[in-house]
């Protein structure tokens, strides 16, 4: 097995693939690291640093979620940028969940959402403190019910 890992490391080193790259490899890494969940779609985001006295830039996407289904929202930040990604799920004006708890400051690599209302939801992605960043958000399907 060691030999296989060495070959893989060699391959990575000479193919230009890096875990930290701000491109589709980041999506692959993030999606395949999601054991027990099936990839549905991704949100690629690259945002500049927030300007002084301005709100941090935010990227918005919309998704269809179905009733009686558990979804996972996960996020991976590219390491060559300072920004740590925050992913938030909204139903119109109401925030339903996030991987970052602003009250406690606790961060999670992902959160699961047990949907009970079919419809169109919004996903917002930004970077903590308005830092410059690049990240991949992944929506995956966990199962029918908890």
């Amino acid at each position, binding site marked *: 097995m060691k030999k296989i890992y060495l070959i893989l490391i060699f391959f990575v080193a000479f193919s230009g*693939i890096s875990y930290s790259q701000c491109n*589709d490899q980041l999506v692959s890494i993030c*999606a395949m690291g999601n*054991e027990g969940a099936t990839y549905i779609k991704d949100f690629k985001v690259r945002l500049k640093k927030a300007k002084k006295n301005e709100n941090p830039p935010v990227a918005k996407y*919309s998704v269809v979620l179905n009733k*009686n289904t558990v979804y996972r929202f996960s996020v991976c930040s590219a390491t060559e940028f300072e920004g740590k990604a925050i992913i938030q799920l909204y139903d119109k004006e109401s925030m339903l969940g996030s*991987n970052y708890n602003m009250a406690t400051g606790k961060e999670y690599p992902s959160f*699961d959402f047990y949907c009970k*209302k079919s419809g169109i939801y919004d996903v917002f992605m930004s970077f903590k403190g308005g830092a410059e960043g690049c990240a991949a958000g992944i929506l995956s399907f966990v199962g029918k019910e908890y």
Partner: protein
Amino acid sequence: MKKSVLLLFVAMFIMYSCNNSNQADVSKDFEVPDSVLMEKPLEISEETMENIIQNISSPIEMASLIKSTGAPFSQKLLSPTDYVDEYGTNFKKALSLGVFGADLGYLNMYEKTGSVITHLSSIKSLADDLKVGQFFDFAMLKRLSTSSNNLDSLIFISVSSFNLMDEYLRENGRTNISTLLVTGVWIEGLYLATQIVKDKPNAEIAERIGEQKLFMNDIILLLSNYKSDQNFQELIVDLESIKALYDGVKISYEVGEPEMIEKDGRLVIVQNEKSVVEITDAQLDKIIEQTEIIRSKIVNI
């Protein structure tokens, strides 16, 4: 753990290969689809279209719901691959590519990795004809489909290839093709679901069929951008006939606040607002019948 690492590398390799394929060659060679001329400005903005396209439900989810009911796999539900070479227009090819994409989700979910190859060949043929074959590493997909141990990778690569293709089409002003793709995926998902309840009643699937009322308008809105084309106009008329059957389907909501819990170290949000669908057997029967007719027009010559 070792398996996951290997899967990861396989996925990275595939993404790397796909992204470095000969996109430049293809982009030089775009053709206006033979059935659509983009002379008039779009009636709805590209941004709105993108939002709608993004919001068509995943074929994997519908297939998973079907599987979770205990319904056995049925080959006869799948779109026939016999006529692929005879689909004469890009309109037909794009619509069918969406249909086959949904079928691929159904095959993958039931772990019918062996049968995937036939469908992959059809997808390859249609995608190449539409000049978007570069997003599929078919050799790799075929290799992955030889073993059910590769299912996670197979699903990821299949779905992400479709997503990348769709993104590329929209970015390159080929939203008409993208629109047909998502319409095909949606119709096939509806067809699979309706056939399952036709065979054996199931409240959950019936409810999911009823929920499609939420998305019908969006799909018709997308297609209406190209209604000056006769093929699109005919498809709109067909979908309007299903939409009319949904008029009596009621969707209501029960209010509730979301709960946040931590389970095994993972953050879980439980939504307590609920949607409730009311769909009668008679309504369902009519939707089943009409979906069969329209889907048959799409997959046959």
